């Protein structure tokens, strides 16, 4: 089943299992069912608890916060992740503050889902991956959808814990088929699930056992899907072997699986679609350089998009955003 339908099924299940689950967002009601159709059918099945809202992201986040403080489990949809900026005050000064500043007397488990990412020609304000601005916000978990993580497992985790979460869904994942590891494989790649206690699993993918890999590649979301295609092609066509590490949670990070991989390969390439600089990859480079300094054969390479606007023109957009070619070049350079 494609990711958008898996997610729809997950939300339907959550609404059915727990009367405290409430969905808020712009244009999420039927017959439209959301800009990316993730909530289609849900307002018909749960009219009281699935509410379409005005174009008011601040109030969507703020009302979600109040619901959460009162014991509900709100899930707020952000039609385009670019509009997360309109929720920033609620996330930073309200939602993530309450539990700690009230000395654990309240919890505010808001789940924010945001459709992010480019490669669709939507231009400068409808294509961004702004999650880097939320990485490192204390008491906020940032989790990225991927084709290798079952959204049911991910949402069960969200709904069973009291922390607020930002869940970023790259919009090019919606029409893709979810490919969970089965019998230790995803397609032709060897797959393993590597998780520290209490953390969502990190998926490790490679064409050959990690002992025979010369590069570790750390990526999430849609870029992880592209990276998987690249490492498979390089393995088959050129016998360049890399292990891909795909976390679900990107902040705070479970570094242990990354350390286990890089301890073997001695080389790390990080990949993200957000703008270069002060980014997820920069943090990974800092942490892994500190922890594995003696084992690294070369500096960590951070692959990210150009720090400029995302053009609408297809060719100009491709020049700015990370894509397969940039990932492949970085892996080749690291493996050389």
């Amino acid at each position: 089943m494609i990711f958008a339908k898996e997610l729809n099924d997950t939300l339907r299940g959550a609404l059915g299992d727990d009367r405290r689950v409430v969905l808020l967002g712009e244009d999420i009601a039927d017959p439209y069912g959301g800009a990316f159709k993730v909530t289609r059918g849900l307002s018909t099945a749960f009219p009281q608890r699935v509410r379409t809202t005005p174009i008011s992201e601040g109030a969507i986040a703020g009302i979600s916060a109040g619901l959460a403080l009162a014991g509900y489990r709100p899930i707020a949809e952000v039609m385009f992740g670019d509009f997360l900026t309109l929720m920033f005050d609620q996330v930073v000064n309200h939602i993530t503050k309450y539990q700690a500043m009230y000395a654990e007397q309240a919890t505010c488990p808001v789940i924010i889902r945001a459709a992010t990412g480019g490669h669709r020609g939507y231009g400068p304000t409808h294509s961004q991956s702004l999650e880097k601005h939320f990485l490192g916000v204390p008491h906020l978990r940032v989790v990225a959808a991927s084709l290798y993580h079952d959204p049911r497992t991910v949402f069960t985790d969200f709904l069973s814990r009291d922390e607020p979460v930002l869940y970023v869904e790259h919009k090019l994942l919606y029409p893709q088929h979810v490919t969970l590891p089965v019998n230790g494989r995803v397609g032709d790649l060897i797959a393993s699930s590597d998780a520290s206690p209490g953390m969502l699993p990190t998926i490790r993918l490679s064409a050959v056992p990690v002992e025979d890999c010369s590069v570790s590649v750390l990526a999430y979301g849609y870029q992880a899907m592209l990276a998987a295609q690249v490492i498979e092609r390089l393995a088959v066509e050129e016998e360049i072997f890399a292990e891909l590490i795909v976390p679900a949670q990107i902040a705070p990070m479970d570094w242990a699986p990354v350390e286990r991989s890089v301890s073997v390969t001695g080389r790390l390439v990080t990949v993200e679609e957000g703008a270069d600089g002060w980014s997820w990859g920069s943090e990974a480079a800092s942490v892994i350089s500190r922890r594995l300094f003696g084992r690294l054969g070369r500096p960590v390479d951070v692959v990210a998009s150009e720090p400029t606007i995302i053009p609408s023109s297809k060719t100009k957009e491709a020049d700015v955003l990370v894509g397969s070619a940039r990932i492949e070049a970085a892996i080749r350079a690291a493996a050389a």
Partner: protein
Amino acid sequence: MRFIRRFEETLLQLFEEGALNGTTHACIGQEADAVAVTEHLTAGDHIFSNHRCHGHYLAHSGDALGLMAEIMGKEAGVCRGMGGSQHICAPGFKSNGVQGGIVPNAAGIAMANQLDGNTAVSVVFIGDGTLGEGVVYETLNMAALWKLPLLVVCEDNRWAQSTPVAANLAGDMAARFAAFGVPVREVDSTDVAELSTIAGEEIAAVRSGDGPRVLLIHTYRLCHHSKSDDERPQEEIDAHWLVEPLVVHGRRLDDIDRLRIDDEVETALSEVVATARALA
């Protein structure tokens, strides 16, 4: 009201002595609003307050020791010293120090009550300065659309920190709420008895399930915004000292009762300060 007044005067004195850390915002002159509103609330109702929250909290809970200990940064404070003066949490009460954002938070609590099918009321206290924040209007719109059981109490104390309303606010204050079809009850008063009657009617109306309402109270802040930051005309301030809530209501008490109340307040307050000081 007398206790709230003396509690905050004591706080300002403790700051001057260097016994307190950080900052504080006194509601001196606005005590009648807190008392008038909270006396109509019952178990299950919820108050969201702002940076100027001491009066609301004391009127709601009477927990002077917990608040004093919190402002002193003691472990025994209501938020174990994590929140301080502006960030208070107790059953049925929360406050936050950022303008505007508490309004949707209170609306969310109102929505939870609506989904639960109970008759509880969610009250949020804002000020004239808060009306500069866009999220207030986003929330008024949604609260009106969804008929949320929310009472917005707007205390217009005529000054947003150092800026007078005239320099901050275009158009008519009440019309801003009315634009969303939200009923506004506007009153210019420091009389706790008058305010209490009106607040009681407004809370009852919200409780009946007809949707959000606004209680707009024109009042006055007699002290500085936080600590020693006041550039307002002295004659304006002096004029308001003549009609402040304690003067207005005090006229209704005979001298013996007044002295007794004052004595009781001083005794209780000294005990609170002494106990809080002695805490670890």
